[in-house]
C-alpha cells in the first residue's frame, strides 16, 4: 500500500444526517452505525484529531494501533486502511482522504506525559487524555481509563527514520482537508480535539474540526 493515497468523496454536507463542529480542546463521543460514513474535516489546517474507536456492542473489542499497522504492513493510515481491533475485528475502513497521511504512533497528549516531555510545571495544562477521561466517565457506560488505548492522530505527520527515530514533522494538512471512513460494524467514536499548546504540531493554535455522518447508499 502506498503511504499517500488521496481519494475524494462526492457527497455534500446537505445530505449528511449529522454535522457538528467540535471546539478546540473538547471531547466528542458518538455512535456510528454499520454502513454509515464518518468524515472529519480539518477546518483550519494541521489540527490534531485524537481518535479512538470501539465495537459498540463490546467496548473491550477496540481499536489497536499495532494490529492495524501490522495488518497493512505500514505505519501510516490513509485510503484503504482497515482500522482493526486487537481481536481482528474490522471497525471501519478509510474510504476518502484528501490529506494523505495520518499518524497512529504518537498517541495522545496527557498532563503526565507533558510533565515528562516539557516541564513538570506543565501539569495544569489541558490535555487530550483529560478529554478522553471526561467523555468516558460522563457517558455512563462504566468505562474508565483502561478503555483509553493508543489512538489515531488524524492529520498528523509523525515519520519514523531508518535508524529507528520517531520525528514530528510539519503537518501536511491544510484548511478543508478531510478523512472519511465507512463503519463496518456499529462503532463508538471517541475524539479529543487536541488542546496541545506545547509543540508546533498545530502551530500552537488548536482549532475546531467538523464531524459529518452520512447514511450508506440505499441497498
Amino acid at each position, binding site marked *: 500500500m502506498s503511504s499517500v493515497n488521496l481519494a475524494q468523496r462526492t457527497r455534500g454536507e446537505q445530505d449528511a444526517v449529522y454535522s457538528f463542529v467540535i471546539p478546540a480542546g473538547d471531547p466528542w463521543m458518538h455512535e456510528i452505525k454499520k454502513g454509515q460514513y464518518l468524515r472529519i474535516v480539518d477546518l483550519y489546517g494541521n489540527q490534531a484529531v485524537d481518535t479512538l474507536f470501539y465495537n459498540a456492542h463490546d467496548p*473491550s473489542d477496540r481499536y489497536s494501533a499495532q494490529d492495524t499497522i501490522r495488518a497493512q*504492513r*505500514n505505519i501510516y493510515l490513509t485510503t484503504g486502511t482497515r482500522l482493526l481491533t*486487537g*481481536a481482528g475485528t474490522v471497525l471501519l475502513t478509510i474510504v476518502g482522504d484528501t490529506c494523505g497521511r495520518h499518524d497512529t504512533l504518537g498517541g495522545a497528549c496527557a498532563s503526565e506525559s507533558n510533565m515528562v516531555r516539557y516541564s513538570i510545571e506543565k501539569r495544569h495544562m489541558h490535555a487530550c487524555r483529560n478529554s478522553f477521561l471526561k467523555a468516558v466517565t460522563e457517558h455512563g457506560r462504566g468505562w474508565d481509563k483502561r478503555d483509553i488505548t493508543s489512538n489515531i492522530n488524524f492529520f498528523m505527520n509523525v515519520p519514523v527514520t531508518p535508524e529507528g527515530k520517531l520525528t514530528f514533522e510539519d503537518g501536511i494538512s491544510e484548511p478543508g482537508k478531510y478523512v472519511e471512513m465507512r463503519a463496518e460494524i456499529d462503532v463508538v467514536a471517541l475524539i479529543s480535539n487536541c488542546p496541545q499548546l506545547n509543540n508546533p504540531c498545530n502551530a500552537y493554535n488548536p482549532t475546531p474540526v467538523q464531524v459529518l455522518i452520512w447514511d450508506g447508499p440505499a441497498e
Partner: protein
Amino acid sequence: MNDTSVLWEETVQGGAAWSHVLKRGTALRLTDLEGGANTAAIFFNFDCPAERFNLPDTLKAQHIARLTQGFVLYSDMGRVLCSITEDTVGWHDPLAGCSNAALVAEKYGEATYQHCRNDWHQNARELFLIELAKWGLGPRDLAANVNFFSRVDVADDGSLAHHADNSKPGAYVELRAEMNVLVILNTCQHPLDPNPKYVPKPVQLSVRRVPAPVRTDPCRLSRPENERGFTLTERYFL
C-alpha cells in the same frame, strides 16, 4: 553479571507464557539461548494496574521507534516502569504487536492440544489474556506490547519489514524495575516472522538484585525527558 546477586534463573520454553512481579531494586535479564527468539511483553504498576505501559508516551518522550540500552519504558502516568540497563541485541521492536489465533492458524496450520500435546500452536494474544486473568485483569487491560529480540524496519514510505537475524545466540537484554512491575511475557514467534515453520525459541530468565539508580544513571541522563521521568517516579515513593 555478579553471580552472588542472582536470585534465580529459569528457562521459558518457546511458545510459553510467564509472569512475575518484578520488585523495585531487582532486574530481569532475558537471554536468547539459541538466537532468533522473540519475547512479547506487557508491563503494569503492580500496586495499581490501571497504570500500565504506554507505548506512545515511551516513543515520543525519547523520540524513538526502537528500544535498546539507555531507554526506559514509561507508564501512562509519566513514570518509569523499567529501564533498559543492558542490551547486546541493539534493537527491540515496539511497533508490530503480537500474534493472535487467526494469524497463527493461517501461517502454521492447526495444531491442537489433543493431537500435539504441549507442542500445540500457541499465540501471543491468547497467552497474554490467560496470564492477565491470573492477576485479575482482562481484555480491557491488554494494550500495546514490546517484542524483545525482534526488529522491524520502517521504510520512508512507512512500510514495515521484519529484519532477519537480529538476535544472536546468547544475546541478552536487562530490565531494571523502577517500581513493583507486573511483567507478563510469552515466547511466541514475532507476528511478522517470515519463517513458515512454527519454531518458537526458548528464552532464559534471570532475576537479580541491583542497586538503586544513581543521579548519573545512563538511562536517567540519556534524555532530559528521562530526568523528569525518574524524578516523577521517585516522588511516587516519597
